[in-house]
């Protein structure tokens, strides 16, 4: 029977197609990507599972409202590149999101098929078409729209900054992106490891942006070289977008936390992902990865720290978390991958103190067991220490993945910027504008550590807000843009990282 003749019931009964992966014992010795992607036939079969709902809830589940049934339909017809282009109408980074989105909490969480069976593998298919388009050289060069003459500065080149850049370039504005590091991409490059998100995926997205006419300047620390106000006053920018993320690492504030061999996840992952310490001394940045690695925290960052460590070949890697697996903010897939690769988990455990040797290297830790008490502000049950449950472990590398604050560097350079008591920047929900006229913000800087796709969703709101603001301010002869209908009732759950 031709797939197009399938009844909804038959469609739903097709099993969810699994994606081949590198075997755990092999992948733990290399930094190559773990999931290998669908082939064409598997992709078509998977897309056939979509019953093309009249009211597709999946679209509301996606923070950028991708036309999911639309692109799935194109896949079933074998029009893979067209499917990729369809996604790109709303999401400029499909190859990235298809890999790192917490789909299980978003689009796939609300997929109707998932009520009875497993949801359609929307993320895997998104990844498939984006990879197909890229690896078959089918990416068509963007057409440069009529220029408005407006100049936009984007600060930070993470997913938020890159999305605003593309959205504004598409509307005909001239965009310059400033990035503090020597490599654009933000957390996509320095945080998320290459075995989850290969470098050429990010690089090809950056190439596309450049072809749209977006200029990207690396090694440019805004706040030090120019304040947001100076960008507008002295450098001729009409508006500024702040997408500097939430890169401030947290330490647990316990004795001994500064011994050598104790890292923030940011430092550890930056040394590995950005500086390629795994290739030392061919790449000359060093890293100290000992025999026993302890990672504290259980978000995606912690999983990345643990899985990266495994690949450095220590005797053991253990994740310690003060709550239980239920509360762990990491994506299910990341947790499972970590377990398969040999990462051990100790739930309900928190650090009390670290011990060092004569050379100031960490050699042990005193930990304490916890139990879950009453729910806290976030609704999760608060971990409570259990008296007398202290115990010691031996450890020679420690990675703290305890969440992030907002880096104050940019805030200091814009004292008028309103922030809440955690230093998170306040931005208007509908326009993305901050308390400073003409300065917009989105991404982790306004949420304090969330997800790629939420950052991109906010960036799209800010781009629209900025565009409308420019129309008013500069008297542009362009129609004001309204938010897409579905965006107003989007109700996706957000995932914590």
């Amino acid at each position, binding site marked *: 029977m031709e797939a197009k003749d399938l009844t909804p019931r038959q469609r739903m009964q097709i099993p969810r197609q699994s994606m081949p992966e590198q075997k755990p014992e092999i992948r733990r010795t290399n930094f190559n990507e773990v999931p290998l992607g669908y082939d064409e036939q598997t992709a078509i079969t998977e897309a056939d599972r979509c019953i093309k709902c009249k009211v597709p809830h999946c679209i509301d589940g996606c923070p950028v409202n991708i036309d999911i049934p639309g692109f799935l339909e194109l896949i079933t017809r074998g029009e893979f590149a067209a499917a990729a282009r369809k996604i790109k109408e709303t999401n400029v980074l499909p190859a990235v999101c298809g890999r790192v989105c917490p789909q299980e909490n978003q689009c796939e969480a609300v997929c109707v098929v998932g009520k009875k069976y497993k949801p359609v593998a929307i993320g895997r298919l998104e990844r498939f078409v984006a990879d197909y388009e890229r690896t078959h050289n089918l990416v068509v060069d963007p057409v440069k729209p009529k220029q408005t003459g407006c100049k936009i500065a984007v600060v930070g080149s993470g997913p938020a900054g890159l999305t605003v850049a593309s959205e504004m370039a598409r509307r005909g504005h001239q965009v310059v992106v400033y990035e*503090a*590091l*020597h490599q654009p991409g933000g957390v996509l490059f320095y945080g998320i490891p290459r075995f989850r998100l290969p470098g050429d995926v990010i690089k090809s997205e950056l190439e596309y942006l450049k072809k749209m006419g977006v200029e990207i300047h*690396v*090694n*440019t*620390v805004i706040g*030090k*070289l*120019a304040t947001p106000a100076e960008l507008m006053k002295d450098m001729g920018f009409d508006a500024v977008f702040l997408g500097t993320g939430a*890169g*401030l*690492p947290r*330490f647990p504030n316990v004795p001994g*936390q*500064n011994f*050598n*061999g104790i*890292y*923030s996840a*940011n*430092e550890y992952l*930056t*040394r590995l992902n950005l*500086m*390629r310490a795994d290739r*030392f*001394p*061919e*790449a*000359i*940045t*060093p*890293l*100290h990865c000992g025999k026993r690695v302890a990672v504290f925290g259980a978000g995606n960052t912690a999983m990345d720290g643990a899985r990266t460590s495994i690949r450095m070949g220590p005797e053991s890697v253990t994740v310690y978390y003060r709550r239980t697996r239920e509360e762990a903010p990491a994506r299910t897939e990341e947790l499972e991958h970590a377990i398969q690769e040999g990462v051990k988990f100790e739930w309900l455990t928190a650090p009390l103190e670290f011990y060092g040797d004569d*050379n*100031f*290297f960490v050699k042990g830790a005193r930990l304490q067991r916890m139990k879950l008490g009453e729910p806290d502000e976030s609704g999760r049950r608060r971990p409570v220490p259990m008296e007398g449950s202290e115990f010691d472990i031996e450890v020679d590398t420690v990675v703290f993945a305890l969440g992030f604050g907002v*880096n*104050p*560097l940019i805030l200091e350079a814009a004292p008028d910027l309103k922030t809440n008591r955690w230093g998170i920047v306040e931005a208007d929900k509908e326009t993305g504008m901050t308390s400073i006229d003409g300065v917009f913000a989105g991404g982790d800087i306004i949420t304090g550590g969330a997800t790629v796709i939420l950052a991109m969703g906010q960036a799209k709101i800010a781009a629209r807000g900025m565009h409308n603001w420019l129309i008013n301010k500069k008297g542009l002869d362009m129609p004001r843009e309204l938010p897409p209908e579905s965006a107003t009732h989007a109700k996706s759950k957000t995932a914590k990282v």
Partner: protein
Amino acid sequence: MHKIVYKKELAPKTVMLKVEAPWIARKIQPGQFIIVRLDEHGERIPLSISGWDAEAGTLRLIVVGVGYTSNKMIALNEGDSILDVVGPLGRHTHLPEGGAAVMIGGGYGTGAIIPSALEQRKAGRRVVGIVGARTKELVLLEDDLRAACADVFVTTDDGSYGRKGLVTDALKDIIDNEDVGAVLAVGPVPMMRAVSELTKPHNIPTMVSLNAIMVDGTGMCGACRVTVGGKIRFACYDGPDFDGHLVDYKELTMRQRTYLKQEAKAMEVFNRESAGRTATP
């Protein structure tokens, strides 16, 4: 790419470089630093600024070859380029007013104190400089410092030039003879520590510039964390200058030694690479 437009050898394994970085040269202030990465596989290393020319768009660096990257850097020549230069990072040096300001430099630190000395002098203050070195040929930038200070004292460990002794011997005399309102010390940790110990009983505000190991230089990674007054501070973001009386020098010294093993291995690579270069003309 940032072109090296000028190079001068100041002492063995020590060079002065002028590097193109126009935007930074317009913005940098005394006490701030930069981070460089020489090439695609390079490490990011922090360097102080010993001067700049906003018009020419250049920064003046003093680089001492101690390991892989710094040795590779001092082997570069005029016309060569550096891949990445980031800055200005850290904060403008702030010294309390009143009395003389004493500026103390050791090693590359002598370059690092010059912009502050000039600034203080321009503000009408009496500025006294002290340069310390092991031996005569390692005394750097004496003339530059003389141009920025009312008086300059030189000390050498072996007495081959200036006064035999340590910078603290010279500082003791100055404190005995005049009203010192602030001290700035930049150089090896033992020197900064000794200076701080000397000034503490006199209650003389003392700033030291902490050379912690860094990666990003913007406060993102925490590699450069130091303990000051019992609190964690990030040297790249909160500093590099801190109150010398509150710094945990032992921790800083030990943290600087984190990668001794890897550094030795990197030097083997350096030696192999440079042997390769000289063997094939």
